[in-house]
């Protein structure tokens, strides 16, 4: 028979084995457990979930978590940009060390960061004393303390997403702008910032997502006062300790949904920024 049967060939072998392993691994460790989170709250019924989430303490905890995460990430934007700029564009003694230190929040266990920040900002700490003396600010055991911890956790995300884009950008565009008669602030505002905007937004989103769920570095410095400095993850822990599984899951699900809404919004914003540039 002249007409041969079709033959399917994978240029690189091993798809079956590796994909099977991967799916089993992802399914068992990620998909099934997260499905539990999505299903469990509804044991309370729709009204029950709404009631469970409408408790003032829950609303307050969600507001504290998301508010502090947003505030910390917004403050981190200029700081992260500054550090990325210093890493890419400036040459000064200690730049290599700075480069390694940026990743410290990734490598330092969160509980360690938590007690360290608390020690620093406590009323008798290295930074707590001067801040109180100079401005009358108390950081530890207030919402400001939560934001400080979240800033520490989120900073590398912004630096590490902006840095490669800045490196990639080179100086060509700026030099071109200069030849076209732009003065330095014009160049920075019209050429550099718009180029970095998508990366800044991505970094902001990553930092925010991480900060919203952060637990270890926050609970030591937060004070954990219900209705004031209690974060949503802590509320989950408390409900679990009371064996209120469904209530805990409801808070967890609400957190995830809010996070994804923020990420989705940022994604749309990023598309707008990109389209505006074309």
């Amino acid at each position, binding site marked *: 028979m002249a007409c041969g049967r079709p033959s399917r060939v994978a*240029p*690189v*072998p*091993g798809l079956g084995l*590796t*994909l099977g*392993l*991967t799916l089993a*691994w*992802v399914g068992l*460790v990620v998909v099934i*457990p997260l499905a*539990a*989170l999505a299903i*469990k709250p509804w044991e309370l019924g729709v009204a029950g979930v709404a009631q469970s989430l409408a408790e003032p303490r829950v609303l307050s905890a969600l507001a504290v978590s998301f508010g502090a995460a947003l505030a910390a990430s917004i403050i981190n934007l200029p700081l992260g940009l*500054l550090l990325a700029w*210093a890493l890419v564009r*400036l040459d*000064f003694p*200690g730049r290599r060390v*700075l480069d*390694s*230190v*940026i*990743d*410290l929040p990734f*490598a*330092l*266990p*969160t*509980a*360690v960061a938590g*007690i*360290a*920040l608390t*020690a*620093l900002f406590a009323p008798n*700490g290295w930074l707590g004393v001067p801040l109180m003396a100079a401005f009358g600010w108390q950081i530890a055991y207030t919402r400001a303390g939560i934001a400080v911890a979240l800033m*520490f956790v989120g900073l590398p995300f912004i630096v590490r997403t902006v840095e490669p884009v800045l490196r990639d950008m080179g100086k060509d565009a700026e*030099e071109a702008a*200069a030849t076209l008669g732009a003065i*330095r602030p014009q160049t920075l505002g019209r050429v550099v910032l718009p180029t970095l905007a998508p990366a800044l937004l991505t970094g902001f989103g990553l930092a925010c*997502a991480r900060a*919203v*769920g*952060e*637990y*270890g570095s926050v609970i*030591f410095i937060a004070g954990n006062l219900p209705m004031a400095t209690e974060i949503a*993850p*802590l509320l*989950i*822990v408390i409900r*679990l300790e009371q*064996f209120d*599984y469904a209530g*805990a*899951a409801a808070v*967890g699900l609400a957190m*995830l949904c809010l996070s994804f809404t923020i990420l989705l919004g940022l994604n749309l914003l990023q598309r707008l920024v990109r389209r505006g540039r074309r």
Partner: protein
Amino acid sequence: MSAPVRPAHADAPWASALLAGAALLVAIVMLALPLAAVFAEALRRGLPVAIDAIMEEDALAAIRLTLIIAAITVPMNLMGGVAAAWAVAKCEFPGKRLLVTLIELPFSVSPVIAGLIFVLIFGAKGWLGPWLQAHDIQVIFAVPGLVLATVFVTFPFVARTVIPLMQEQGRDEEEAAATLGASGPQTFWRVTLPNVKWALLSGVLLCNARAMGEFGAVSVVSGHIRGETNTMPLHVEILYNEYQFAGAFAVAALLALLGLVTLAAKTLLEHAAGRGAGGAA
């Protein structure tokens, strides 16, 4: 003699110096000071006290448990991560983007939720709770639960560091190996693995650091039983809440050292990978 001419569009030296100074200040206040505080607090009452705190029985048990969890978690995630990287980077199949999203998902989930989901399944009032109780199997408040939560949290590290590199390298070399008669395993061991070994090692290090340092997820599933289900970070918390600050910071310093070693090793690895891309031996 004329001064060197600075192009008009470049920043003035004073501006650069100001920026560099500001950057260093931010890094020192936000990153270096907390680290310094850990070691300062740990040594406040002298090195012997710190060492005693670490050599104390419960602390040693916590260290042992942390090492056991890492020893189980890291190989599991190494295998899964390499398999996922191979499938995603070297093969074609529908739904690839969805799979990549799923692999990265644990990074955007709160560690507390990571613990919570396993309690929902294996906890006393969870789906499998009654069955587990009937068969006298302890998952939550025991080592299996700690391992599960840690696996979930550290799950993406290996895949995430290896996939971009493997994708960048393409499959030319694997195809060449196939035409030269190499089997799948031969291709993997002789061609693919040597090309990604530094990235793989770096991913394993990060995975290990997180596995040993994880707090939120294990806190939820641990039950904080001293000497039994207490990992190092949990031990730090207990000591701290009991106002045993010296002990808490001593164990914390040990964890911080782990982080520092990981950072240093990662920097060295990146260096090695950059230099050894061509394999100059």
